[in-house]
């Protein structure tokens, strides 16, 4: 790691003011991606501002058809939450499949979404369930949040405070994990809420995206067969040593089929 100055923020205002005076500030939540990035010298912040002691940043609430998860809630807490398991079992399952138990004991939902790793699980749930991202400044619709590789609608000093998910009628999440890291090679969240159908894909492209063709097919028939023959173009998909873009395109169809099967099971 390159040298940096570490500090704790005592409140959101304190965090943004520290960020404002830093030459190149970086917020830290669970640190499960930030620290490995720093260790590989892929980033060189002058200041790391730890949000761990900002009060009231963790917790889960389910009421009025909304699952509200504060930004610094650990993956393990989401996975183990009886409320989340009841309201959106696919979301609890997603959280329980991130990394491994030790990673889930530290990593947070806000950190994952703000970082926008193309292979992270949570972005798939944000577009696949139509979540809203709440920050210290505003609310951002999930569909408008992820812009490109590691790029989001967040302003430089903006901090996610919570994520709210409308409870769907049914939803399913399936991922094909990299066997070593458990990151998504492809992950698909499918949901239905009334007449609204969503198919959110993560792992395959630069950032999470929806598949309108699958959504309209599912609107006429919410069955695995409806998406079985829909192939997405592989041109813009990620290709690496783990999976070519053609293979990822293939996996999107397979994972979507299985996610629908899970949703109707």
């Amino acid at each position, binding site marked *: 790691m390159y*040298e*940096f100055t*570490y500090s704790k923020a005592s409140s959101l205002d304190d965090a943004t003011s520290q960020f404002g005076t830093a030459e190149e500030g970086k917020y830290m939540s669970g640190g499960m991606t930030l620290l*490995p990035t720093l260790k590989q010298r892929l980033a060189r912040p002058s200041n790391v501002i730890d949000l761990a002691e900002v009060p009231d940043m963790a917790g889960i609430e389910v009421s009025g058809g909304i699952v509200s998860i504060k930004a610094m809630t650990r993956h393990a807490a989401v996975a183990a939450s009886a409320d989340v398991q009841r309201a959106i079992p696919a979301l609890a399952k997603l959280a329980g499949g991130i990394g491994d*138990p030790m990673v889930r004991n*530290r990593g947070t939902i806000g950190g994952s979404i703000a970082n926008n790793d193309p292979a992270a699980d949570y972005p798939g749930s944000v577009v696949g369930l139509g979540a809203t991202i709440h920050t210290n400044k505003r609310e951002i619709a999930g569909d408008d949040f992820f812009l490109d590789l590691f790029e989001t609608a967040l302003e430089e000093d903006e901090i996610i405070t919570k994520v709210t998910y409308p409870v769907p009628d049914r939803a399913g999440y399936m991922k094909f994990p990299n066997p070593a890291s458990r990151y998504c090679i492809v992950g698909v969240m499918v949901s239905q809420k009334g007449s609204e159908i969503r198919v959110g894909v993560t792992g395959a492209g630069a950032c999470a995206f929806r598949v309108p063709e699958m959504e309209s097919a599912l609107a006429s028939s919410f069955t695995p067969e409806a998406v079985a023959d829909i192939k997405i173009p592989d041109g813009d998909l990620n290709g690496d040593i783990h999976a070519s873009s053609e293979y990822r395109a293939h996996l999107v169809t397979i994972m979507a089929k299985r996610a629908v099967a899970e949703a109707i099971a």
Partner: protein
Amino acid sequence: MSVKFSFTINGKSVEGDVEDRTLLVQYIRENLGLTGTHVGCDTTQCGCCTVHIDGTPMKSCTMLAVQADGCEVTTIEGLATDGELHPMQAAFRENHALQCGFCTPGMVMSAIGIVDRHKGQKLDEKTVRRELEGNICRCTGYHNIVKAVLAASEVMNK
């Protein structure tokens, strides 16, 4: 720059004053001389560096030392009481759940986490295998490790 912090490790208080970027595992090994916690992959995958922070297993290669400020840290050295092995350690010995031994401290620390998460429930092999996914044994000695965790869970749940 340096940063000050204090935490409890294996029941003893320590006060640290280290470079901001010092990792917890580095501090535990190099400053405190507790070399039971290992560094395997250094990339958050192998689990050799697993310690307990306030009773929860975490990877100490992916935490700054200062992030443990105010916490209770337990390492493999802190498990035995009065010379008597922790039931998980005893089960690892009993079941020959180690070959070269490099992954063992991390395996033991995460395995205790598995039993804790399923307190009072009967663990099955599938659950143990799935929840050990954050620990890699390059001798591939998983079979006896799983046996040991199942055996220890019986004792720990008594």
